[in-house]
C-alpha cells in the first residue's frame, strides 16, 4: 500500500496556504487509494505549526532544526530523504510554490521518485494515480502516468484544491530527531530582500489597465498610460513587460508580483499564464483583449475582444471620453 505524505510549507515560522491545498489534495487521494495520510513538517520552533496541522491531519511527523527555518532546499532534501527512506512506496504532495520549484527536482532524484509538477487534477486507474498538468504555453491539458519507480512526487497548481477545515479531530504527532549531520550545507540562506516600492500601488487600485507580451516589442507606452488616465486607473503588467524594462517590477501582477483585487481589470495582450491569473482572482470584472482566441485569459475574463489591441485601444479611449461628456 502506497503511503501518502504532504509537506507543510512555511515561511517566517508561518504555514503557507500551499500547505492546506496539499492537505486537501492528500485527503482526496488518500481516500481514493485507501492510503494513510501523513503530514511532514520540517522547521524551527515548530510547536504552534505542529498543533494546527494535527487538528487537520491523522498523523504529523515533525522535526525541529534551525537549519530548516528558511526552507533551505538542500537541508530539506537531506531531511526528507532520511524520513521517507523505509516508508516506500510513497506519494509526496507539495504546493508548486517558488520555494518548492527548487526543492522538488533534486528531492525526486534523491528519493528515487517520479516527479510531475504543477498538477491541477488527479485520476486513479487500476489503483495507480495519474496527474493532469499543462504543456505548450499552458494551452494543452496533459494526463501523465508514472513509471520506472514506485515512488511519486507531485506539486500542485495554486487555487485548484479547496481546503475545508475538519474542526477538531486530533491527529497523532511523532517528533523525530533531526536527521541532519554536522557537515556544512552547500547552499546558505543569507537574508530576505523586500521588493522596491514604487510611486504606484497597483495592489490598492480600483481600475487597472494591464499590459502583456501582446503589446509588441517596441510599444508606445504613452498610448496605454493615456487610456489608464482616461479610465481613472493605473498601469500594471505581466512578467514579460518587466523583463523588457518597459515598466518597473512593482507594476507586475501575479504570484511573483502583486496580487490585486480591482473593480475593473482590463488585460491587454496578456495570454493569461497561471502565474499571472493567480494574481487577479477575485477581481469582479475582468476584460481581455487578445489576438489569440485560445489565450487562457479568456477563461477567467467575463468579456473578451479577439483583435489587434492597437486597433482597439485608441477607439476605446475615445468612446470612454465620449461617454464621460
Amino acid at each position: 500500500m502506497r503511503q501518502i505524505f504532504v509537506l507543510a510549507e512555511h515561511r517566517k515560522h508561518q504555514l503557507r496556504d500551499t500547505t492546506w491545498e496539499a492537505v486537501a489534495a492528500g485527503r482526496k487521494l488518500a481516500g481514493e487509494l485507501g492510503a494513510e495520510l501523513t503530514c511532514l513538517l520540517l522547521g524551527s520552533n515548530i510547536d504552534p505549526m505542529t498543533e494546527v496541522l494535527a487538528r487537520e491531519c491523522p498523523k504529523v511527523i515533525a522535526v525541529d532544526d534551525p537549519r530548516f527555518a528558511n526552507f533551505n532546499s538542500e537541508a530539506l532534501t537531506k531531511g526528507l530523504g532520511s524520513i521517507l527512506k523505509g516508508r516506500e512506496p510513497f506519494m509526496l504532495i507539495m504546493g508548486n510554490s517558488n520555494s518548492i520549484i527548487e526543492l522538488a527536482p533534486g528531492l525526486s532524484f534523491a528519493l528515487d521518485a517520479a516527479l510531475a509538477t504543477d498538477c491541477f487534477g488527479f485520476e486513479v486507474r487500476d489503483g495507480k494515480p495519474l496527474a493532469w498538468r499543462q504543456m505548450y504555453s499552458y494551452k494543452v491539458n496533459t494526463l501523465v502516468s508514472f513509471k520506472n519507480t514506485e515512488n511519486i512526487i507531485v506539486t500542485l497548481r495554486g487555487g485548484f484544491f479547496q481546503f475545508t477545515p475538519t474542526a477538531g479531530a486530533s491527529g497523532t504527532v511523532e517528533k523525530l530527531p533531526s536527521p541532519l549531520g554536522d557537515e556544512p550545507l552547500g547552499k546558505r540562506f543569507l537574508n530576505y530582500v523586500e521588493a522596491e516600492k514604487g510611486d504606484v500601488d497597483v495592489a490598492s487600485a480600483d481600475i487597472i489597465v494591464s499590459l502583456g507580451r501582446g503589446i509588441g516589442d517596441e510599444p508606445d507606452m504613452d498610448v496605454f498610460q493615456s487610456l489608464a488616465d482616461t479610465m481613472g486607473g493605473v498601469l500594471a503588467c505581466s512578467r514579460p513587460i518587466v523583463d523588457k524594462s518597459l515598466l518597473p517590477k512593482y507594476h507586475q501582477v501575479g504570484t511573483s508580483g502583486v496580487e490585486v483585487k480591482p473593480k475593473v481589470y482590463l488585460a491587454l495582450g496578456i495570454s493569461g499564464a497561471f502565474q499571472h491569473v493567480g494574481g487577479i482572482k477575485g477581481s469582479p470584472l475582468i476584460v481581455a483583449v487578445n489576438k489569440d482566441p485560445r489565450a487562457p485569459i479568456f477563461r477567467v475574463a467575463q468579456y473578451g475582444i479577439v483583435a489587434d489591441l492597437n486597433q482597439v485601444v485608441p477607439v476605446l479611449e475615445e468612446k470612454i471620453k465620449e461617454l464621460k461628456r
Partner: protein
Amino acid sequence: MDIIVCMKWVPDTSEGDLVIDRDGKEIKKDSLDYDMNDWDRFAIEEAVRIKEKLGGTVTAVTVGPDDAEEMLRECLARGADEAFVLSDDSFEGSDSYATAQVLAQFMRNRSYGLILTGTLADDDCAGEFGGLLAAMLGIPASTLVSGIEPDEGKVKFKRELEGGLYEAIEMNLPALLAVATGLNEPRFVSVRAVRKVASIEIPVLGLDDIGLEESKVGAAGARIQIESMVLPPEGEGAEIIKGTAEEAAAKLAEILKEKGGIL
C-alpha cells in the same frame, strides 16, 4: 570561470491554434516555428556577461534535433566559445529525467564552475530539468535566480519568492543556477554577428559518443509518460464581443461604464 549553458529548442506555441495529433498524445508540430526557449536566452546572455567580467569560457549545449544548430549558432554569435548538439534516435520520448541523464553524462567529462539554464521551458512547463541535472552531478542548485555574483569558490545571488519578496543566497561552486527571466537584457544579435561564427563547427554527439546505455534515455529511461492530451474546451469563460475592432471597442466602453462603474 568555465560555464556550460543548457539550451532548449522549443516550438512557439504562444499564439495561434494548436492541434492534437491523431494518437491523442502529442500536438502537431510540423507547422510550428521553433525558437530558443525564452528562459534560456537569459541564461546564455548571463553566461556571456560573467565571462566578459571574469574570463573563462562559455559552452552551449542542447539535447534536440539537428535543426537546433540554428539556436546554438545564435549562442555563438552572442559570445559562446563552443557548442554541441546531443542528438540520437534513442532520445525520442525523453522526459526531463531522461534528458538530464544525457546532459549529466556529457558534463561528467568536462570541467565547469557554473552550469546555467532557464527555470522553465515553454513546451513542457515543468521546471524540473535543472534540479535533476544538478542532483545527478551531485552539485547544489537553485531556481528563479537573478543578481548572480561569482566570488572565489562560491556564488551569491537572489532568488524570487512570491509577492515581490526575494531571498539572498550563497552557494558553493560548482553549482547549477536556473535563471529567472528579466535578470538581464539579452543583447541584439545582428546578422553580421551570426555570419562571423558561421565557420565554427558545432559537433553533433550521439549516444555512443557520450557513452550512455540506451535503457537510460528516451521513453525507456523516462519516469513520466504522456497518456493523453486534450485542448481545454473553447467557449468556456468570456463572452466574446463581436464586430470589427472599432465596434467591439465601442461596446466595451459601454460595458466598462455599466458593469465596471467607471466614469
